[in-house]
């Protein structure tokens, strides 16, 4: 199969799917290795940078999805008024950020940082598919441990957890230990 065709086929698959597809699924369907798929994706990514292209590749975890270009969002909205994605409330966002940086983390640990009860926000984040229960901590009461999901990455346009912004520096003087602890990549 020529490379160009591979690119076209991937575009066709992503178009029909609309949803994110795992690279391995693409590789299987095309009968090509992951490297060939990765190469084709890069070609597609590059081609999409042209003004004449209205699409872009969104990648997260080991998945890829075709989405409309952010630059053209205004026009897309003018025609389609896509259902406005609900942005998170302040408290949900705070809880989610703590889970993201501290994962896997228990409710009690999140609450210790926020200083408020977090049952509700954890529950609603789980319902939105942004966090999930990944097991239990082997301590008294065996509390549930939470971690973020692939959908979390997608919601924030991140490719992987490594892209989470690093902890703010400078705003904090002192307590280097604490900062270091916080900055640990999950």
């Amino acid at each position, binding site marked *: 199969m020529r490379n160009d065709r591979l690119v076209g086929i991937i575009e066709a698959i992503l*178009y*029909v*799917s*609309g*949803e994110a597809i795992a690279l391995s699924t693409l590789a299987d369907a095309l009968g090509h290795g992951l490297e060939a798929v990765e190469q084709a994706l890069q070609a597609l990514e590059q081609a999409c940078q042209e003004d004449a292209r209205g699409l*872009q590749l*969104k990648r997260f975890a080991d998945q890829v*999805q*075709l*989405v*409309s*270009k*952010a630059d053209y*969002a205004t026009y*897309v909205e003018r025609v*389609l008024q*896509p259902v*406005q*994605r609900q*942005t*998170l*409330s*302040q*408290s949900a*966002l*705070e809880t*989610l*950020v*703590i889970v*993201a*940086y501290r994962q896997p983390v228990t409710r009690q640990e999140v609450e*210790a*940082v*926020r*200083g*408020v*009860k977090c049952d*509700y*926000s954890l529950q609603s984040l789980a319902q939105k598919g942004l966090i999930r229960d990944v097991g239990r901590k082997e301590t008294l009461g065996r509390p549930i441990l939470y971690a973020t999901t692939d959908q979390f990455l*997608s*919601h*924030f*346009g*991140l490719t992987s957890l490594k892209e*989470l*912004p690093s*902890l*703010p520096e400078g*705003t*904090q003087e002192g*307590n280097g230990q*604490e*900062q270091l602890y*916080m900055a640990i990549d999950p």
Partner: protein
Amino acid sequence: MAFVVEARAFSGPLDLLLHLIGSAKIDIKDIFVSQVTDQYIALVHKAGMLDMEEASEFIQMAATLLLIKSRSILPPPQEGQEEEEDPGTLLIRQLEEYARFQQLAGQMQEFEQAAARVFAKLPDEYPLPPVTYELEGLTLKGLMAAFARVSARAREQLAPQASGSVIRLDQHSVAHCMGHILRRTRRGSLPFTELFSQTPTRNEVVTLFLALLELLKQGRLRVSQQEAQGDIIISRGSRGGEQHHAQ
């Protein structure tokens, strides 16, 4: 969910405290030497207790602030007597940690907004494929096993059928069939499979076969097979001829 003070919703007591610290333009560490704690207690007091569940954390924080304040008036405990960390230090550390997460949350909100500017298409309603059957596991052996089961059951059913209410005319007497076979082999050999009609009845099959066996036994016919799975060929035997042995 939020505690609303002066038209701004606060996600918790730490959020409110940080807001007050920000408004007072002081460093977190200076919280206890500023008016911030008094402001906090006053605000919580003024806001009233509409929702106890929600307000409890704000009230608890107010209590903590009062405790810290009261301790500061008392003479400091002697060296070595201090068992737990000073609540003031603890609160400052908690505030600092929380402030960092709040800042991160702000950055994440920007990411969220940027990500909300791209739209995906709804998945096409792709019709599910007709189920294709996995026949890999199905071998001739399996087919034959199924066959064996069916024929075993068919045998069981034979008895009730025989005693059924409908009695059909027996067109297939052994004698009749012997004549039939001999007639058909007159001009040469006949494949076994062609011995039977297109849709043979059970009776026909059995009788024809018995007739064939009888003719073979009498040596009037012989059978041969070229290859293992090949067709069985029926031809006239050494004692062939037209003589008809009546049964």
